[in-house]
């Protein structure tokens, strides 16, 4: 019996490779779902969250335009259907916020409940901790996007080009890679600054401001436009919305895909390096479980 237990333990310990990391990431994602569902209000929040962000934009838009058409927007982006334009932009934002906030704060949450050091000593790659949380937030945010888009179609008359769904999902995949670089940077801030949620709030609010969610980049001040072009969130929103509005005929497809690939490479390399260095630094300082 003892021998058998030892063998299982050794087998577990020796488990490595992409499959083992994937299983670990999946276990982390499932664990987070269980935690969320143990708070009854979380379920309610999960359902209403996408609408609480989207509806104020619709009310404000209605107060400004007085209808469903906007000549000013048509002059800027070629479509007067401002409701569809904003609905698609804000739907993607829900996913981005979920990825940035949820994953960015994942290690902090483990730190608060005293499980971060234990997780760090398990035989999985440190990056898997972040990937596991990212997987959960991708599922969480993805369901939110589906929920918001369905309600937007049913309640606000938003129209989608169904041919654009698969290319839009490809944009989401490219976007997730680039966002990982950003998320790794956010995790570094959280690990070093401890009470770094304020910095995370600042970074995410700035990224959301310069992203073309409810307005095109053209209305931003020139300096901010340059920052906007360098953000993967900008190209993700543009690509996601472009495909869902115009289908495969979306004219900005090439620009969005190429820009995302280039930014993915840059952000993943920089974010990954930063995470490795920060994690080593925090371990050396013995500050992993400090508040």
């Amino acid at each position, binding site marked *: 019996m003892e021998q058998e237990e030892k063998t299982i333990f050794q087998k577990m310990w020796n488990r490595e490779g992409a499959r083992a990391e994937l299983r670990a990431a999946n276990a982390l994602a499932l664990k987070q779902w269980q935690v969320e569902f143990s708070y009854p*209000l979380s379920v309610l929040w999960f359902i209403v969250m996408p609408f*609480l962000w989207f509806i*104020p934009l619709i009310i404000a838009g*209605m107060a400004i*335009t007085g209808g469903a058409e*906007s000549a000013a927007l048509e002059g800027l982006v070629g479509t007067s259907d401002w409701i569809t334009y904003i609905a698609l932009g804000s739907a993607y934002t829900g996913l981005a916020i979920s990825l940035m906030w949820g994953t960015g704060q994942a290690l902090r949450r483990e730190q608060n*409940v005293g499980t971060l050091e234990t997780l760090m000593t398990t035989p999985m790659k440190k990056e898997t901790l972040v990937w596991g949380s990212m997987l959960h937030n991708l599922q969480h945010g993805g369901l939110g996007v589906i929920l918001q888009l369905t309600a937007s179609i049913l309640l606000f008359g938003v129209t989608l080009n169904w041919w654009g769904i698969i290319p839009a999902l490809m944009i989401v995949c490219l976007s997730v890679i680039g966002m990982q670089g950003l998320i790794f940077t956010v995790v570094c801030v959280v690990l070093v600054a401890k009470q770094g949620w304020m910095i995370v*709030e600042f970074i995410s609010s700035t990224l959301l401001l310069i992203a073309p969610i409810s*307005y095109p980049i053209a209305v931003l001040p020139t300096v901010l436009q340059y920052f906007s072009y360098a953000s993967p969130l900008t190209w993700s929103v543009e690509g996601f919305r472009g495909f869902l509005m115009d289908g495969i005929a979306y004219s900005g497809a090439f620009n969005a895909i190429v820009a995302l690939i280039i930014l993915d490479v840059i952000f993943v390399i920089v974010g990954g390096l930063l995470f490795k260095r920060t994690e080593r630094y925090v371990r050396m300082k013995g500050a992993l479980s400090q508040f």
Partner: protein
Amino acid sequence: MTHQTQEDKDEVTHQSSDYLETFKPRAMDWSAARTFAMKNLRIALRYPANIMIWGFLPLLWFAPYILMATAVGGPETTAHFTEISGYDDFIQFVIIGWFVFLYLDNSIWGIGNNFRVEQFSGTLEPLFSTPVPRISILLGAAFSDSIQGTIQAMILLLLSMSIFGVSYSLTAIAPTIIVLLIMVIGLYGFGFMVAGMILVFKDPSVLTQLVSETSYMISPVNYPINALPKPVQFAAYLLPTTIGIITIREIAITGAWNLLNFSQAVLALGGLAIVFWLLGLATFQFAEKWTKQRGHMGGF
């Protein structure tokens, strides 16, 4: 243990007993409220950047509305907006909305989350076992949050005025202070209610976001109240900030101070303050009893 140390210990025990023997429970302990507020402010001052960031952050939250208005309505305020709101400058309109709304946001996130912070620091149970009325602790938390909130709101107002080049009537200062004072007193009751709910539901990130986002959605911050459906307008008027935003906005932008309208607003705010205090204290007392009975006080 030496003889001297034993004597010292006995003396301390005797003194403590004296304190407890002569202690008479009071309905309100102002000194405890002040001490709790000072403690919170001292912690806040340890992180001065936080206050600055919270004064600056709302700018990043409302700038998207201004950019959206430019994108869908053009660079000038639209005729439709002027028609339904009665104001011809969207930016001037929105800034006042955010200035007042910050107080509501603060009462939700600040007062409400105060006990959660104590819970995380492991000091909630000792705090609740002190012979101090709960109302003093709640008010202490509320005072410190009002001071921080006012600093943040002033930073936001001055920063926004300089960035967007808008100005407001100076005659609005005195009536604004009166309205803000009554509104803040009402918001204390609202904050007590949220604090009670956090004691029961525990997870403040979800509850506070839910309360905060819902009240934001129905408040006339970025749009006039009549842009909302009728039943929602009714719900909006139940929030102390709605009357606050409408009154302060009118006086600050037009500079006109109609005594009758102003008195009505003050009376309505006073009425809401009484209702929220009663509701807030009742909710908090019930929540405290509920969590104590289940031994959940320090739990997560």
